[in-house]
């Protein structure tokens, strides 16, 4: 779109360190001004991106005509990663790389679109062998993907479904995963039942246990309790890992905690968590969720759930207490 002589577009730069630790830096370099055109440029020598960023780029490309999507000539030695993760295919672009068949068995899940509950179930079943997960880690990953994809299918109203990708990183012994949609965004979803002023307020409200866009009733409806995002954020917090959610102009990023023998504290109020936030990001029509899950965490999944349970129940009790009038002794 020509506007005051400048060619506007969505510009994305894929760098050599696009991880959740540096997500602020990634955001600073993107421009989402014109949703009808997407131009991607890449680092000259090395590309290293979180799978969530690939889901984000793929999501942006969903609503752009293929002739209006470009990617520069990828010169980085690690550029074939974009091919292996299916980015060229998702964007409808010819590949710049040839991947030999035997190379495809790394520990990753390429960009995948999920549009129905049945596709979700199949994806969760198929993903465990792809990531070579041990049984003790499989449930946590299945849980995370199950809840996040279901959120998209149920609340986002996205015509493009949920776009998912994941990768195992041997050096850090970690699974990084991302889920993105091009739906109504968290603010519109949560505003169906709650009054929120802006995107970051909506994101933080959505992270509170027991808060859902479908009702204000405590305990939720028969189908929704408003627990999904709180659980995922809590699992990341207990594992001292990153968690990030981006929707509209809002970004909430749970920061990594230092290793310690003590269990990290778990908060029902996301404001109390060690986090970074902004309500000034480039406006994104949809929602991106990114999670890092360390496989070094020796805690059993059921033990994590036990701690989450206690925080959750306490939060509900306190909220119930707050809405009842108390006797006045005059």
């Amino acid at each position, binding site marked *: 779109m020509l506007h005051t002589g400048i060619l506007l577009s969505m510009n994305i730069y894929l760098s050599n360190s696009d991880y959740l630790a540096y997500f602020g830096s990634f955001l600073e370099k993107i421009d989402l001004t014109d949703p009808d055109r997407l131009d991607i440029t890449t680092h000259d020598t090395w590309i290293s991106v979180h799978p969530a960023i690939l889901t984000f780029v793929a999501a942006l490309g969903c609503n752009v005509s293929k002739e209006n999507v470009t990617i520069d000539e990828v010169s980085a030695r690690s550029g074939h990663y974009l091919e292996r993760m299916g980015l060229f295919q998702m964007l409808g672009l010819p590949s710049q790389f040839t991947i030999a068949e035997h190379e495809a068995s790394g520990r990753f899940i390429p960009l995948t679109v999920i549009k129905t509950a049945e596709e979700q179930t199949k994806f969760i079943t198929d993903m465990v062998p792809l990531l070579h997960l041990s049984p003790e880690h499989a449930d946590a990953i299945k*849980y995370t993907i*199950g809840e996040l994809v*279901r959120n998209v299918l149920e609340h986002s109203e996205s015509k493009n479904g949920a776009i998912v990708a994941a990768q195992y990183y041997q050096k850090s012994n970690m699974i990084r995963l991302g889920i993105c949609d091009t739906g109504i965004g968290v603010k519109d979803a949560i505003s169906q039942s709650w009054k929120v002023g802006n995107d970051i307020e909506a994101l933080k409200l959505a992270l509170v246990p027991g808060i859902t866009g479908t009702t204000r009733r405590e305990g939720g409806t028969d*189908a*929704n*309790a408003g*627990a999904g995002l709180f*659980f995922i954020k809590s699992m990341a917090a207990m594992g001292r890992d990153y968690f990030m959610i981006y929707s509209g102009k809002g970004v909430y990023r749970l920061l990594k905690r230092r290793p310690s023998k003590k269990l990290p504290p778990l908060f029902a109020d996301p404001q109390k968590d060690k986090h970074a936030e902004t309500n000034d990001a480039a406006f994104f029509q949809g929602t991106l969720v990114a999670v890092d899950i360390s496989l070094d965490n020796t805690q059993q999944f059921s033990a994590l759930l036990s701690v989450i349970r206690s925080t959750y129940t306490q939060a509900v009790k306190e909220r119930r207490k707050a809405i009842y009038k108390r006797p006045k002794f005059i």
Partner: protein
Amino acid sequence: MIITISKHAGTFAENKDIARDIRVQDIEPSLLLGETVTLDFMNVTGATQSFVHALISEPIRKYGDDIFDKLFFKNCSPTVQEIVNIVADYMEAS
């Protein structure tokens, strides 16, 4: 009535549409007749909170904690037990 969850939901129970169908078609009619219901989680390694919520939250809301004299959970892994306890706790607290 005994309901074998893995027959409907596989080894990881996450599809809440299936949970709702089990509740509406099997659990609630049996409870209305005063029968006991056993949810057998044999071979289910894990479940999401969404699945268990869709399965049992409405009976808990309707019958209160008396439901646990009628609704039983069998062969639950530690993970499934925790999820069931979480849903029970927040529904009873609500």
